[in-house]
């Protein structure tokens, strides 16, 4: 009896180690394959060069600019709305009231909608009905809707983590509610809010299907938010559709490497904020 249990334990333990090894193997494989083939082709010329369809000297500067515009635009639309929503839910609304349930249900449903449906909606509503055309603005508005629930949820958690004594202290000193929120509650929830904004940045950089349906794929630097632009992910997708020459393969690997590096940097920033914040709390 005892012995068979021991065997079973060993077997299960082996399964756990095997699974973990498989996970790690895949992670290392993906990263190594892309970075080892791509990093050597990431050069200053590649990053700042203009895209030419044929030829060796092809760069991705226009895609970087489009991606940055897309991030800035969607964040500046979504984050104020999301933060104010979170403030309403935690500071104003009665916990558990009907309206809170409705708002929470709706934002959670928003989070569950597949991104391609956002693309479908954005293309009909922003591009066609509002007449914004395939533009950074249409893409930014679509992505703003997509990241709204992400920022709302994490900001709400950060606000709820602020001890009630802060609020009581503020009121006891005669501060108004809005002053207490602005000067006491928001600053102490700031690390959580910044983390959620960085997470959404990653989400905006990573999205592709809703982006090409709303912002198009023009490979020029957008001059205004009403111009079409191609983000890095959409660029990588387009590159993989026509992989013939070695130069095209190199470009694809280099673009994929840059995307991985971007995600890596964003992850490092969130880690630094988290450790600093935890130290400050302790």
């Amino acid at each position: 009896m005892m012995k068979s249990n021991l065997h079973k334990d060993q077997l299960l333990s082996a399964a756990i180690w095997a699974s973990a090894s498989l996970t790690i193997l895949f992670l290392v494989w993906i990263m190594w394959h892309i970075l080892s083939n791509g990093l050597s082709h990431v050069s200053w010329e590649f990053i700042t060069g203009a895209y030419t369809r044929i030829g060796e000297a092809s760069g991705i500067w226009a895609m970087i600019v489009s991606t940055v515009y897309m991030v800035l635009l969607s964040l500046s639309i979504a984050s104020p709305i999301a933060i104010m929503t979170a403030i309403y839910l935690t500071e104003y609304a009665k916990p558990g009231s009907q309206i809170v349930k409705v708002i929470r249900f709706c934002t959670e449903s928003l989070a569950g909608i597949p991104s391609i449906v956002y693309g479908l909606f954005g293309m009909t509503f922003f591009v066609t009905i509002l007449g914004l055309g395939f533009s950074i603005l249409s893409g930014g508005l679509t992505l703003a809707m997509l990241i709204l629930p992400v920022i709302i949820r994490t900001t709400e958690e950060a606000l709820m983590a602020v001890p009630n004594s802060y609020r009581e202290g503020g009121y006891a000193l005669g501060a108004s509610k809005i002053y207490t929120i602005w000067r006491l509650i928001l600053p102490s929830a700031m690390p959580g809010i910044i983390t959620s904004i960085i997470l959404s940045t990653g989400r905006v950089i990573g999205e592709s299907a809703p982006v090409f349906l709303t912002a198009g794929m023009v490979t020029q630097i957008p001059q205004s938010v009403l111009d079409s632009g191609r983000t890095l992910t959409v660029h990588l997708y387009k590159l993989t559709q026509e992989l013939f020459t070695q130069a095209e393969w190199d470009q694809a690997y280099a673009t994929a490497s840059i995307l991985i590096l971007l995600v890596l940097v964003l992850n490092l920033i969130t880690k630094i904020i988290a450790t600093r914040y935890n130290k400050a709390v302790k």
Partner: protein
Amino acid sequence: MMNTLSEASAIILSEPRANKRQWQADIAHVIFFISAMIGVISVLTIGWFVFKEGLPAFQQAGITQLVLGKEWLPPALFGIAPMIVTSLISTLGAVIISVPVAILSAVFLAELAPKWLANIVRPAVELLAGIPSVVYGFFGLVIIVPMIESAFGLPAGNTILAGIIVLAVMILPTVITISETSIRALPRTYKEAAFALGASHIYTIFKVLLPSARSGIYTAISLGIARAIGETMAIIMVMGNAPAMPGSLLEPARTLTANIAMEMSYATGIHASALYSTGIVLLVFIMLLNLSLLYLNNKRA
């Protein structure tokens, strides 16, 4: 002291200022409320739009023709049964491969891994959760597709199987991270009590910890399923996208999401409406998924 306090309260409570402050507070309240309603309005607008635009295709083809029809020849025939089958099969396949590996990996990180190793693997898994899906698609295209090609002697490796493998890798980090968090969130006393009763570590993991973390693990799996069924670009890149009913896992096929992404940019009229109805079917699946999660977690409570 007493004096200043009463003076202060007199200032705060003096009529005009109190009114002004009340007025400001009301304005702030209204602004916050309006912001909160934007999310509600967004979801209603998207829902209303998708259903309104998809309706003509349902009316023209009929719900059974659309959902059970096998021929996709817009603007004449809008059978999306092949896409429904492909979406379900590829998601199911990915879940069958990925979920056991992911849950055991989560157990590894939460319970068995030495601290230094967990501190390396955990951030790596989190990093993988953030990598754009086109990068996974690219990896699938250059590694998985040629492997399938040579392993099965196919002319082209762009098949459902390639899609399943890419999706399985993609949902791995999602399921691992959330499962691990829910295992770690369990009170230490569960483990201590099991040890005190003489249970081995492995026995404790499988009979005490995993069952107790069930609701978090269900959530992790449902988020993994949602990611798999909603994935678009990675699938387009590796699955071949033929809109016919697939005969086996080694044939190219098109998912619901791919159907929308491939044709939306040039579709007009009833064709566009058919793509919206594809979106409706996708949303129905997501709703069913969330309802079953709700049911599973309520049953437990």
